[in-house]
């Protein structure tokens, strides 16, 4: 159970999202760095060779603007870049090119729902900046302690990021987790980023404080190094409890940056932070300001796809529950798959069940993404229609789906393998079969007729025999009805 804070919790988040560009923010080096040999995606610009000049990637500006619009922010027609100086070798320039003051978008909000309650989190601004390289510490555990030097890989250095800074509107770790989940969903819907926290495409820095008795804000602590939504929530829960305990024991909170240690489930103070953070921002003279025209803003607005909350509202129109729409719209690709199934004639409610329960089950079993799912929407629609018309039982339908998802076979072949045929067994043919099964089980028939089947297990066995013989083609209701009539 989550820790319950005795003081109001105030959280603001800074979320860094790697933008889906092919090349870096200021140079043509590839952004595809995962698994690459260190220092191969580098050039004189991202290695800060003297005499080189940065040149802004047009797509990064477009994607940043798009994300800002998705957050209902306002695109700034005029923004610029600054140099953020810091003494750390993960950028070869010894400064980071970032936006400061005049950012690409300002304002906006994101509506979330946590613990069943709606919440609006306001956005302060969104800015563009370059990512840093990665430091590797040559010690057995990869930590800095014990290292006498560090190694640096600049492949990631210069990859475009959009940093989204929220207002301190978040009131609990659960809300923080939900906010980031919705932000990630938005980034994916907009094709702005893959939003994978585990690979570092999305990173969160959290500022957390506890309000004082008079309502004024308490001392803020920044937390870094959370690599999953779960880690974010756990780190904030730990920090809430830690700060409460410090205050309860008469102590005071120190303004500092703390790192989340996932293995130990604690936050730890970063040394020397109290003497750092003078970034000496000043305008980046190598880059002219970014000017975005009214025409470009209109183009960005026109190119916006349907957003998650719009899709949820539309799916609700299909008669789906809140839970169903939430699951189906979580990933844009899944929502599109579902809509395609419906467009091929599957009833919306039935199709929702199949996609939500069976398609996701199979994908989970195969550890695959919906984009890798072998069953085409038209095939699933056909399957759903057969089951809906009771020409196939639900059980056989699931069996067929399993075969189609695992093997490259046409629908007819999968159907053949289950031994089933489309076409509902009913009426006289079904009655004949029931008679045969009853004849083969005289003891059971006698027991049921003489009232020795109080729990109904014997009747269910006979029904099961009918379904087995017909490979699920018999209508269960009609089978039950005919058996009941004959066994009175």
């Amino acid at each position, binding site marked *: 159970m989550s820790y319950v804070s005795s003081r109001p919790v105030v959280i603001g988040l800074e979320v860094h999202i790697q933008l889906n560009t092919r090349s870096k923010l200021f140079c043509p080096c590839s952004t595809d760095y995962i698994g690459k040999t260190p220092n191969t995606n580098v050039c004189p610009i991202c290695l800060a060779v003297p005499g080189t000049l940065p040149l802004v990637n047009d797509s990064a500006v477009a994607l940043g603007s798009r994300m800002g619009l998705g957050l209902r922010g306002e695109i700034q027609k005029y923004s610029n870049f600054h140099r953020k100086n810091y003494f*750390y070798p993960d950028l070869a320039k010894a400064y980071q090119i970032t936006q400061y003051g005049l950012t690409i978008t300002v304002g906006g909000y994101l509506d979330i729902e946590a613990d069943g309650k709606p919440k609006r989190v306001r956005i302060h601004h969104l800015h563009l900046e370059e990512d840093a390289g990665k430091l590797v510490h040559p010690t057995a555990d990869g930590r800095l*302690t014990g290292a006498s030097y560090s190694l640096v890989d600049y492949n990631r250095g210069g990859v475009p990021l959009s940093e989204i800074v929220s207002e301190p509107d978040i009131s609990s770790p659960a809300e923080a987790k939900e906010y980031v989940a919705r932000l990630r969903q938005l980034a994916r819907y907009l094709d702005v980023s893959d939003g994978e926290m585990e690979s570092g495409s999305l990173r969160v820095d959290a500022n957390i404080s506890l309000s004082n008795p008079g309502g004024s804000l308490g001392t803020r602590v920044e937390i870094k190094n959370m690599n999953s939504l779960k880690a974010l929530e756990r780190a904030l829960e730990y920090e809430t409890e830690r700060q409460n305990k410090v205050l309860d024991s008469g102590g005071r909170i120190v303004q500092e940056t703390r790192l989340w240690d996932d293995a130990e489930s604690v936050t730890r103070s970063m040394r*020397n932070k109290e003497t750092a953070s003078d970034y000496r921002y000043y*305008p980046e003279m190598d880059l002219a300001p970014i000017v975005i025209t009214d025409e470009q803003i209109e183009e960005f607005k026109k190119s916006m796809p349907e957003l998650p909350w719009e899709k949820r509202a539309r799916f609700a129109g299909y008669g789906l529950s809140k839970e169903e729409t939430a699951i189906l719209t979580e990933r844009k690709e899944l929502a599109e798959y579902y809509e395609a199934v419906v467009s091929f004639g599957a009833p919306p409610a039935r199709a929702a069940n199949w996609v939500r329960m069976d398609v996701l089950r199979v994908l989970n079993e195969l550890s695959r993404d919906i984009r890798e799912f072998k069953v085409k929407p038209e095939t699933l629609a056909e399957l759903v229609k057969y089951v809906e018309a009771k020409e196939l039982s639900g059980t056989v339908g699931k069996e067929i789906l399993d075969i189609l998802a695992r093997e490259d076979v046409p629908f007819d072949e999968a159907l053949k393998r289950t031994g089933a045929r489309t076409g509902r067994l009913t009426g006289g043919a079904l009655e004949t079969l029931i008679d045969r099964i009853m004849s083969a089980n005289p003891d059971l028939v006698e027991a049921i007729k003489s009232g020795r089947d109080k729990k109904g297990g014997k009747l269910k066995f006979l029904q099961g025999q009918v379904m087995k013989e017909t490979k699920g083609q018999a209508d269960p209701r009609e089978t039950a009805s005919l058996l009941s009539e004959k066994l009175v």
Partner: protein
Amino acid sequence: MKMTVDRNVTLRMARAAQIRIPDDQVGHMMDSINDILDFCALVGDLDCAGVPDFTWKMKRLAPRRPDVAHEWPDRDEFKAAAPTTDGDFFRVPKINAEE
């Protein structure tokens, strides 16, 4: 007005910048900083009245490039020019802030 730093100020600057300077190199670092300060004093003597400040005043379009990736042809030259490397990595001083 010309400024100078002494040995103590040099060590305080090193601490603020989170670097450690071996004792036998403090003097060299102090001289280097004083050279920079001398140059600043020289620049300070220039008459800059009427010269605009360095922020951009014109709302002109910054040139942007299309999002096309390509490899730099000779990447080994960077490692060859680096003071120290270790395999595919550049080797850099340990920074304490993360510890």
